[in-house]
């Protein structure tokens, strides 16, 4: 079991006040908080060895390069990628997806089909719509059901030898649904299609094994897993990364440049044009180390208990409806509770609980198709991390009751 009291001491922000009340941070699915161990790494970088990487012979540049590449190895090991150069540093999930979708512009032709799910974040919809516009390929959608799960029989029916690419999130940010990605990947491979998994929401809770999953592309953001904003990764199988053309041109990504012709650098540099977020990459490595020290099994076990407890307490509120899978808190979802109370607008609830020091997300969570499916303007979303406590759940539920009383 986790020593949450000790863990909370690692996070300086958790002791601040908001509107005169102790902060209760329940917007972890948007961005997680940063432990001192990671903050120290950031401070150390700028205090001691800030320099450009891969280009200098001087000591600072060498130190920065070594640490940056060490972080790549940490990330490789964490995701169990076969090779370090299959890990591409990006500015985050959105950037990673755009990198792949842009690359596929030269690989797709008219009448090819690509498949998305109804549960996606806009980041995993819009780049592919743009790709389809560019190439004439057709976008097909795996529908969802009332429980917020993908309808897998419909998925099977959508697949054919026209299917070139499938992109689905590992875990839905709006509902917390854990999607059956192993099955999705296998079925796609049976028709020769590649698969990109958006792991932005999964990585704070589980440790994906990209080789076991046999996934072609897996993308994630550091800021959702105790790391800094503006950095993330694209994992790609070597053969796929070699097939894709570079995304951006610039320094770092070249082998040789003349005005007649440029030859591109090898992986991973081919996709890392320009000076990257060096400090961010190093801190991402530190964040992964931090989470692994706590242990993903411990994290999942604790968060599941917190989820079950919060679900039970919330459902005691009259008129409260939870959207998504198994509202009683099953293993098939992560610690995200998306809900509404009667006809009360999520904005109103969010505004009032903020006054009570509680941070929740309200709105469509960049997943408008899901809101349209349920025919609602949005939801209130409380998302829990391993540093949240049962007492915080109680305070949140009390604040919510207060809000409901004021608003009804």
């Amino acid at each position, binding site marked *: 079991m986790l020593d949450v009291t000790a863990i909370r001491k690692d996070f300086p922000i958790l002791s601040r006040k908001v*509107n005169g009340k102790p902060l209760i941070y329940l917007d972890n699915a948007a961005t997680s908080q940063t432990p001192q161990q990671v903050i120290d790494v950031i401070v150390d970088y700028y205090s001691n060895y800030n320099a450009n990487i891969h280009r200098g012979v001087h000591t600072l540049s060498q130190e920065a390069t070594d640490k940056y590449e060490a972080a790549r190895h940490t990330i490789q090991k964490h995701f169990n990628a076969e090779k370090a150069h299959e890990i591409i540093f990006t500015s985050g999930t959105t950037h990673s997806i755009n990198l792949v979708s842009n690359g596929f512009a030269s690989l797709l032709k008219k009448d090819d089909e690509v498949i998305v799910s109804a549960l996606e974040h806009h980041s995993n919809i819009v780049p592919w719509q743009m790709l389809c516009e560019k190439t004439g390929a057709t976008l097909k959608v795996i529908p969802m059901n009332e429980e917020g799960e993908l309808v897998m029989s419909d998925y099977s029916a959508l697949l054919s030898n026209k299917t070139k690419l499938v992109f689905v999130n590992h875990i839905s940010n709006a509902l917390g649904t854990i999607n059956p990605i192993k099955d999705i990947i296998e079925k796609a491979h049976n028709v020769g299609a590649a698969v990109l998994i958006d792991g932005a929401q999964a990585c704070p809770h589980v440790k994906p094994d990209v080789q076991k999953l046999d996934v072609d592309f897996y993308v994630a953001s550091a800021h959702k897993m105790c790391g800094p904003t503006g950095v993330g990764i694209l994992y790609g199988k070597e053969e796929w990364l070699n097939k894709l053309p570079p995304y951006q041109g610039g320094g770092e990504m070249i082998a040789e440049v003349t005005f007649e012709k440029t030859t591109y650098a090898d992986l991973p540099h081919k996709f890392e044009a320009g000076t990257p977020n060096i400090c961010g990459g190093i801190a991402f490595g530190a964040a992964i180390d931090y989470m692994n020290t706590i242990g993903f099994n411990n994290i999942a076990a604790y968060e599941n208990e917190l989820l079950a407890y919060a679900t039970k307490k919330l459902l005691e509120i009259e008129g409260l409806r939870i959207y998504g899978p198994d509202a009683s808190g099953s293993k098939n979802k992560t610690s995200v509770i998306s809900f509404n109370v009667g006809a*009360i*607008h999520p904005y109103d609830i*969010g*505004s009032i609980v903020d006054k009570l020091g509680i941070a929740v997300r309200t*709105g469509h969570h960049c997943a408008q198709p899901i809101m349209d499916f349920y025919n609602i303007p949005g939801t209130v979303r409380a998302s829990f991390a391993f540093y949240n406590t049962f007492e915080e759940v109680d305070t949140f539920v009390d604040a919510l009751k207060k809000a409901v009383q*004021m*608003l009804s």
Partner: protein
Amino acid sequence: MTIKDIQNEIIDEFSMFDDWMQRYEYMIELGKSLPLIDDQYKTDDNIIKGCQSKVWVHAEMKDDNVVFTADSDAIITKGIIAILIRVFSNQTPQAIIEADTAFIDEIGLKEHLSPTRANGLVSMIKQIKMYAIAYQTQVK
């Protein structure tokens, strides 16, 4: 009354509240009680889509003054709309163009007028000003 007078009146009213909860309760009352717009004007043409809440605004000229009606799907947003309408409606285009909204800070509702709130209110104020400018040109 001039816009400034109305704003001062509102500041006076809000100064009687001791804490945020009373202010919010008052706004929620305003939001609940007022029919703010005729249903025929709740059209897609009049909608301002914030990420968080929707706002509808309709304007017409009556005896040299602009009359605004508006609505929102969120009650707190609607309460603030009620306050904004009290300030801006039934004023001349010129007065509306010249007015500011600093009083919102003074009554402790500043966060609701931040563009990052994406509740449609900032766009609503812009829209109110645009209507005023449009009617101003008509008058001339």
